């Protein structure tokens, strides 16, 4: 479904990503793990068209997308839940969701209710809070909102950047369940995580990124037993 081929990207001078090859099949959950500063978020930004490539290409359903603008990428079905949630603080919960839908559809955001129902079904906690301003919500609620906002654009592929960050173990558990449901509903997921244990529990396959290069990749069940992975990411 998604294919990164030889992707190299940089902010100004220094290259941050070197020759990244990565692919995701339909209905998979693929994890991307790595240390701080390894380039995980940059990879997601490259897919979303926010960071342009120096070389290489990105294919989505066999069509090149690396020249598209960010909003075009959303509209062809790639959603992105950014690192640190970044809900719109001064907008209400409902407005956050509406913006998620209208950003994708343009000005005419009709037929919202079905999408809203779908989202509230997954995150019932949001429903009674639709009039609340987003900044006043707890971290866990904000994460649900951020995911819901991305789901409003009916993504076929959802990029999630460290959704478990700052959540209590119980909430991480809930989040894990939600992500599973999102996949069952037919959305493919690329999950960036520091919490490697959670990522390995969820994902079918994983890539390990080290200083901008793919160091390892494979099925999670195989990676789990890899000594390097164990030492670096699963030690606890």
């Amino acid at each position: 479904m998604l294919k990164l081929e030889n992707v190299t990207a940089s902010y100004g001078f220094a290259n941050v990503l070197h020759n990244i090859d990565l692919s995701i099949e339909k209905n998979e959950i693929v994890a991307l793990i790595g240390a701080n500063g390894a380039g995980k978020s940059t990879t997601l930004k490259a897919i979303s068209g926010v960071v342009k490539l120096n070389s290489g290409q990105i294919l989505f359903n066999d069509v090149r997308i690396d020249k598209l603008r960010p909003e075009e990428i959303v509209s062809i079905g790639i959603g992105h839940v950014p690192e640190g949630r970044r809900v719109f603080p001064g907008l209400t919960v409902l407005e956050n969701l509406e913006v998620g839908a209208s950003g994708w559809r343009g000005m005419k955001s009709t037929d919202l209710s079905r999408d809203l129902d779908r989202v509230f079904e997954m995150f019932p906690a949001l429903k009674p809070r639709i009039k609340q301003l987003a900044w006043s919500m707890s971290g866990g609620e904000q994460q649900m909102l951020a995911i819901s906002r991305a789901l409003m654009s009916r993504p076929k592929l959802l990029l999630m950047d460290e959704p478990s960050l700052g959540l209590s173990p119980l909430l991480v558990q809930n989040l894990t369940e939600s992500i599973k449901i999102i996949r069952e509903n037919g959305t493919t997921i690329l999950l960036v995580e520091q919490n490697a244990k959670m990522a390995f529990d969820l994902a079918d396959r994983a890539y390990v990124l080290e200083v901008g290069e793919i160091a390892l990749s494979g099925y999670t069940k195989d990676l789990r037993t890899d000594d390097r992975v164990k030492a670096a990411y699963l030690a606890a």
Partner: protein
Amino acid sequence: MKKVSKIIIMLLLAIIILSVPHLIKSDYTLHVVNLAGIYAICVMGLVFLLGFAGQLSLGHSALMSIGAYTTGLLAVELNLPFVITFPAAIVVSMLFALLIGIPTLKLKSFYLAMATRGLNIALFIVLINWKRFTHGADGIVNIPRPSFAGFTIQTERAWFYFIVAILIVCYIASRNIEKSRIGRSFKAVKEGELAAEVMGIDVYRTKILAFVLSSALAGTAGCLFAHLNQFICPNDFNITQSVTLLSMSIFGGSEYLLGGVVGAYVLTFLPEALRFLQTYARFINGILILLIMILAPSGLFGVVSSLFEKLKRQKKLDPPNNSPNIADVEGMEN
């Protein structure tokens, strides 16, 4: 080797400077050269503030007017000599800078910009309307020439040497400050206030110091202006004049003291050369600022120095790939 060439350059420069008043026959032209020198002093103050410390003043001609009116009133009303009125002018302009700096420099940077513009407007109104004190729109006339121990600086030629001497003193002092710890703390504040604070720099005080020093140079310029022209009126120091001073500093490159000096001379002479365009002066000036900011925000010196760097780099190795690759989503960095 380097030292020798430096000395030769200095000598050449000295000869050129000393010969200027002999090459220029017309008193009027020399007068314009002298005015440009005075503006150069004020523009160095702007470089201090904008280029070094990263603070913007839109009202430097107001600070000049403080210096001019202080010396003018003291000299005309109280008959005080230049050796007293000159430092008084500087001190009073520094006090005004404190007055404006204290409430604004704690806040976001556009407050100083707007407050100095406000000062410019308000001071203009006061100078026009407080007739008993400032003589209103008529201005102050017959401001005496400065004299030291019986020698009066009378001719334009004498003024030329006088102004160049003060300009050089100001330049050397400013250059020394730039290289000192204070100068480095200015630049640290410009780079990022939070980081500067972490380094142990008192950001607020540093900004105030930059503004006060800048105002001292403006006051110096204003004082010289009053004694050179022997007449000052509120219109010499309006908003347009402030913006002209700013365009001088950014034309040369607001991070370079010498850039400011060059900018002052060029932009004082340009309108003289383009006399026939006089009616469009403000229009041209405004467009000039706009274009500099769009095309070369680092000014003449900035462009030249980055060209030099490019040449240097090409001599060494292949140039690094420095194409900015962040997508052109406007204002992405909040």
